[in-house]
């Protein structure tokens, strides 16, 4: 340790930190009731009862029952199909380029990419996750992603972003690796859903407004490409491929994923 480092250590000893709160006590209190039901407080018991009654009441109403029971699960992603609003023009009628321009200018897109949390390099990202970060071999000239992010959502989630070589200020596609155990996505409402397969595994092709939100409530999951989403999963990872390409092209890209 050089002189400057010693000075830093010495000076930092004088920090007047706020008193450490009883974090252990709070966390212990949060953990214990979950594991011993007899310690459940009256307030919680009443809340639980009310929620159960509400749920049971809703289950008796046919439309509500359908809404509660009907969802599609792929990996950790749960999709709740919503009825299409008759006034909304189907997004499939618009060209992909138009969709991009509707949401943001190219410069704004690049600025947005710079502000996403967890920006890193591909090599560094691979060191931070235990699963292999696969790259598409199709199209042949796709190369490595232009942007790589690692975000912690109870498990390090990798996000790769490729820019369009024909229009370098536009995002071509983004690929998300969501490890098992991450925060579940609870709210999704695409207007068009289609079952398909990726390498023989069940997959979902979703088109349309697609707001996602993690259960944490603190981090909004923002779409990078304002196009379509292909979702599939293996034993431990849920994959989301966002692109404005067709289903056939997107599936071909998904099926070409290999270890670099």
């Amino acid at each position, binding site marked *: 340790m050089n002189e400057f480092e010693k000075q830093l250590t010495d000076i*930092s000893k004088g920090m007047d930190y706020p008193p450490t709160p009883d974090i252990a006590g709070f966390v212990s209190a949060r953990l214990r009731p979950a594991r011993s039901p007899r310690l459940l407080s009256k307030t919680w018991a009443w809340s639980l009862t009310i929620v159960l009654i509400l749920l049971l009441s809703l289950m008796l109403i046919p439309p509500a029952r359908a809404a509660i029971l009907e969802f599609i699960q792929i990996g950790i992603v749960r999709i709740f199909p919503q009825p299409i609003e008759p006034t909304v023009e189907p997004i499939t009628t618009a060209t992909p380029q138009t969709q991009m321009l509707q949401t943001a200018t190219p410069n704004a897109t690049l600025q947005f990419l710079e502000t996403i949390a967890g920006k890193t390099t591909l090599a560094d990202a691979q060191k931070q996750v235990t699963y292999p970060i696969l790259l598409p071999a199709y199209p042949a000239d796709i190369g490595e992603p232009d942007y790589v992010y690692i975000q*912690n959502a109870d498990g390090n989630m990798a996000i790769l972003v490729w820019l369009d070589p024909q229009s370098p200020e536009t995002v071509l596609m983004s690929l998300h690796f969501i490890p098992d155990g991450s925060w579940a996505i609870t709210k999704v409402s695409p207007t068009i859903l289609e079952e398909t397969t990726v390498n023989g595994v069940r997959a979902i092709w979703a088109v349309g407004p697609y707001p996602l939100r993690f259960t944490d409530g603190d981090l909004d999951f923002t779409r990078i490409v304002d196009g379509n989403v292909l979702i599939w999963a293996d034993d431990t990872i849920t994959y989301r491929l966002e692109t404005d390409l067709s289903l056939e092209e997107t599936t071909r890209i998904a099926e070409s994923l290999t270890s670099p």
Partner: protein
Amino acid sequence: MTANQKSPYTTEGTEFTEKITQYLCAFRVLRGDCLEPFGINRCIKDRNTSREAHLDESTLVRHAADGDTAAWEPLMLAHQQAVFRFAHLLLGDPDEAEDIAQETFLRAWNHLRRFDTSRPLRPWLLSIASNLASNKRRSASRYLAALTRAFRSELPSTTIEEKSTQHIEANTLWQAVRTLDFTDQQIIYLRYFLELPVSETAQALNIAEGTVKSRLNRALEKLRQIIKQDFPLLSEGREA
């Protein structure tokens, strides 16, 4: 119930208390102030060697990973200060630091089975806290909370005059470090403010030890320039 029968709750409660006592002994060993025998010979015998203390921590982690909250409590007591202070340094707000510290221990508890017990716990906890703080810095709710606080009319509990020179100097250094990039701040806080060894700093940041040294060199050079340009009193104070 006859006199010979024990209430299951009493038995369970007694066992729980005994466990807490044993684990608190282990905590004191971890903290380095276990001076009296508490009934766990292993703890007492090995209290002066960090290696053995670490072994004891891993035992507690294994118990906690099996769902034993009584084993998790002393581990939280042992590390809550470091986690809270690290979060406070990164975010500059005690309320947010408390939230982050609580969330850190809850998430760590939920993922204990994935934790490699051959490693020390502290860097892993600090790594979780760092990720949470990083997300928090970008969340909209944080700015709303900061805005709310800005409108509070509470006066600080202590005035500048009441603070010692040492505190002022340390806070000035903190202000200087806060002008650096988030990644540079992280490494400086871990290494010099929390005094983690290079190996634990590397584990907390998920990088190699060699990378810690090179990043530190770059961060220190930036900090040196910032102190020289924007906080000259700090360097003058030290030179005097």
